[in-house]
Each structure stands twice: as structure tokens, then as C-alpha cells.
């Protein structure tokens, strides 16, 4: 795997919900190399650090990648001012990505929370009707990508904390129910830490392996600065690894959340 540092044209920009934006970049070299679950480091003009943003979807034929992010601060606000036709300066693709093969038997479940929803869209696309997407949001006006998930054939369950749409409450109950139906080969999760903890616990209880994508404040994004640490336990030993290069995807059974 290799990465590039370049500016690529924005060919589409859409506002999804509130302060959440979707961008499509024409970057054949990146799209060709990219894997589901990887991320990009986006330059925010006038800021020292780039902002890590997960890849939502990759279209290798068209040579595009799609990025979906929320304005969290001044850096992401600056990036969100870019428009169709502008160039976006990115380092990409970065990180390890999700590990899966659709040739293997069984169903998969993807669990997304809020702005952690985007990076698993292509997993759902690849598994089609064998995928179940459980997507959790604060309220109805924060719901994103539910139709995109459903479009690929995945059974899509939306949950909201306030019950304003879909299942009231967290993703935990629907996840338990889906797991209890059996035949689940893998669960993929991305979202806030309490949600990831719930995903890993449910999977452990059901004896199903899981992979979770972590978020952390990053420096370089390529492994050099060792800013974005996380702890994993492997073979009884504790290791402090880099979210950017050793992750952002880790085995749920190994990572300390």
C-alpha cells in the first residue's frame, strides 16, 4: 500500500444534515489504491495540522472517493468552505482499513454512530443483502446515509437517542437481536467510544469477531509522530500502537477502549 500527497478536484459537494457535508473527489491514483476503512488527511488552509477524515466510499471505476465529515471546529469549518471545482489537498489513502472477504460465508453487521457512520458504507455495498446496518444518531435531524446503506441492499435499522425516528435508544438492543439470529461472520463498528464498547461487549457475548475503527487527534497521520496512541492487548501483552498507521481499524477483541 502506498499513499499520495496531492490536490484533487472536488466534483460534487452536498450538505447532508446540519453541519455534515459530503464531498466527492476525482483522484484515480488514490481511488485505485484505497481500501474500505482507510482515511485521508485534509489540509485546512491557514491551519498547521491536517484533519483526518475517513473515506466513506471508493469508486475505482470512476476514480473517485467520497468523504463525509462534520464541522467540529475551525479547521473542518475551513475545509467545508471548499466548493465544487475547487481542489482539496489530501494525503491519502492512509491507515489499514477493514479486513473482510465477501467470499466467506455468513452475514455481517455494521454499526455506525453519528459521524462514525460513513466509513462502512462500502462494506454494506459489498455484502448487499447479507449486510445489516445499525445506525445510531442523537435525533432525526442528525440522521445521515441511511438511504445510502439501504440502497446497497442492506437491512438498515436507524436508532435515535430521543426516539424521534426509528428505534428509540442506542444501537445495543438491535445489535443483540441481530446477533441472536445467528450466522454472523463479523461485526464492524465506528462511532463514539461508549458505542464501540457496547459493540465489542455484545460481540464477545455472542462469540462473534468484531473490528472497530477508532478516532483520535492526529499529528502527521502517517505514523511518524506517534501522537495518536491506542492500547491493544495481544497474547497477554500490552502494546501502545498508532491509530493512524497500525489502525484506525483494530480487532474488537484486542483493543482497549
Amino acid at each position, binding site marked *: 500500500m502506498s499513499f*499520495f500527497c496531492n490536490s484533487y478536484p472536488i466534483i460534487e459537494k452536498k450538505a447532508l444534515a446540519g453541519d455534515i457535508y459530503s464531498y466527492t473527489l476525482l483522484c484515480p491514483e488514490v481511488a485505485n489504491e484505497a481500501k474500505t476503512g482507510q482515511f485521508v488527511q485534509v489540509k485546512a488552509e491557514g491551519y*498547521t*495540522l491536517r484533519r483526518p477524515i475517513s473515506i466513506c466510499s471508493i469508486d475505482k471505476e470512476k476514480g473517485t472517493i467520497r468523504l463525509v465529515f462534520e464541522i467540529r471546529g475551525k479547521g473542518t469549518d475551513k475545509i467545508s468552505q471548499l466548493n465544487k471545482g475547487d481542489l482539496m489537498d489530501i494525503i491519502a489513502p492512509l491507515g489499514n482499513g477493514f479486513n473482510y472477504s465477501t467470499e466467506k460465508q455468513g452475514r455481517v453487521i455494521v454499526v455506525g454512530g453519528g459521524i462514525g457512520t460513513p466509513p462502512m458504507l462500502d462494506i454494506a455495498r459489498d455484502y448487499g443483502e447479507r449486510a445489516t446496518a445499525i445506525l445510531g444518531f442523537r435525533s432525526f435531524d442528525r440522521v445521515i446515509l441511511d438511504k445510502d446503506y439501504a440502497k446497497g441492499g442492506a437491512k438498515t435499522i436507524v436508532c435515535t437517542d430521543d426516539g424521534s425516528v426509528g428505534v428509540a435508544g442506542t444501537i445495543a438492543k438491535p445489535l443483540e437481536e441481530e446477533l441472536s439470529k445467528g450466522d454472523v461472520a463479523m461485526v464492524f463498528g465506528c462511532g463514539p467510544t461508549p458505542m464501540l464498547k457496547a459493540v465489542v461487549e455484545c460481540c464477545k457475548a455472542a462469540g462473534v469477531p468484531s473490528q472497530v475503527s477508532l478516532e483520535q487527534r492526529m499529528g502527521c497521520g*502517517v505514523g*511518524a509522530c*506517534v*501522537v495518536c496512541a491506542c492500547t491493544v492487548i495481544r497474547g497477554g501483552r500490552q502494546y501502545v500502537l498508532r491509530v493512524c498507521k497500525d489502525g484506525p481499524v483494530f480487532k474488537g477483541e484486542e483493543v482497549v477502549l
Partner: protein
Amino acid sequence: MSLEVTLCGQKFKNPIIAASGAYGFGDDYTDLYPVSALGGVSCKGTTLKPKDGNPTPRIAETPSGILNSVGLQNPGLDRFISYYLPRLKKEDTVVIANIAGATVDDYREVATRLDSTDVDMIELNISCPNVKQGGATWGVTCTGAATVTKAVREATKKPVIVKLTPNVTDITEIARAVEAEGADCVSLINTLLGMRIDIRTRRPILKNNVGGLSGPAVFPVAVRMVWQVSNAVKIPVIGMGGIATAEDAIEMMMAGASAIQMGTAIFGDPYAPIKVAQGMEKFLKDNNIGSINDIVGTVKPW
């Protein structure tokens, strides 16, 4: 036009060195350009035993800079010698080991063991603001700085660079103290101690509460300190702190730096060191200067 510089008998093809902590062990950016494009690489601060570093978050953006509180996370000396050093030594660049420790014995042992390797130079980190023991606790007093320098000097024949902290009343006194104990070179500045608070949660952004400030915000402080130190000692000075462009690098060398290091700028633009080298060449050409050495310390103070 030549960018070649020689420091402590060591030849560098250009005066641009990747700063410790910003460039790992030289193998993270090779997808973009070979590490041989750089004059040298100062490797991630290495301690005798592996170190896990501080809790996260360890980084925060600041006006024109960043705060970090990594806390010297590194794989330890054994792994450096057996794995990273041989890999980097295959490249045509000067390899500098950056070493840190909690005690004088730690520094001595690390230096002793590096002496029998083919590492080119040793940079002594007595300026890390993010560890409770060692690090900057040595670098903030003349006695502490002198003690560690002396121990390392006795342990190795390799050229010894002492990396100084700016978090002191008078950096020239520290520089003189390490020169007196046999330092071959000083590098400065390490990061300035800083802090940021999230006003919504009233929590510091860094889990370590405080961290080291770097980036363009510290550049004028670094230029001033390099100028003062280069006037106070006879040994060469490596200048660093917020260098992002060729103009910055040239300014730093005019202040008295014989070579420069770049760190934070690389996070924003991985090609920044390459652009600095190109910009330096252009400056020499445009001004009809034969060698980059000819600009060192040429500031004309009022």
C-alpha cells in the same frame, strides 16, 4: 551552488535535517520521496527501555502551531539498534540518534551502546517537556545539563549534539555549560511549554494538561535564541523551531545556525523539506552566493 555543509566532521548533502519526533525513524514518508533527499534525520527520541508515552489526546492545534505531549513513546534502544538503525543506514543520509533518559546512568548506557554502532551522530535530548523524570529536568540548569553532557561525552567518541530547551532564563548559560563539558554541537530550540483549555468542558485539551509548543508561532523565539547562542559558544549550532519555508531556513542560518531541523511543518506539508532545499538553491543562485555556508551568521545586527 552548493548546499553541502560539514558539522563536527560529518558531511551533510544539504543543511536540512528532519527533527526528532516529527519523522519517526525515517521510513514513514518514503512513499513520497526518498529519505536521501534530506541532509540528515534525527530519529525519534530513544530511551534504554521501550516507553509507552502519555495518555491521549496528545496534540492540540494552536494559533500558527501545535502543542504536543507525546512523552517520548519509543520502541527502546534494542529495537532501534537491531531494526531501525540498519534500515536507515542503508540510505544516503546522516543518521542522528536522539537519546533520552530518566537518570544519568540511562544516558551513559544508551551512549555507550550506540558508540559501537554505525550511527553517525548522537543528539542528547535534555529538553523534552513531556516526561516527569529526565528530559527537560536536566536541561533547565547548567549543572544538570553539564552532568549529562559529561557522562555522554565520556561514553562515546561519536559527535555529540546537545538539544537545548527554551524554557530557561538564559539559554546561553546552558549552552556554555555543555560546551565546557565537551559537546560538539548544540541544537535548539526544543518546544516551549504551553497549555490550551476547552472552554466548554474547562478541561485542558491535552490529557497531560501541558505540552510543548512548536510550529511557526515559535519561530521568532528560535531565531533570537539561535542568534544569542551562536554568539556565546564556539561550537556549531543547529537551528530549529517553526521553520516552514526556505526564507525561514535562510533567516535561521543568517542568525547563526550551521544547519537546520524541520518538524511540525512536515505534518502540514510532507514536501516542506524538499521545497526548502529548492528555495535555498534558488536564493544562492539569485544572490550569486557559492555556498550555503557563506550565509551562516551573516546577520548584521544594529
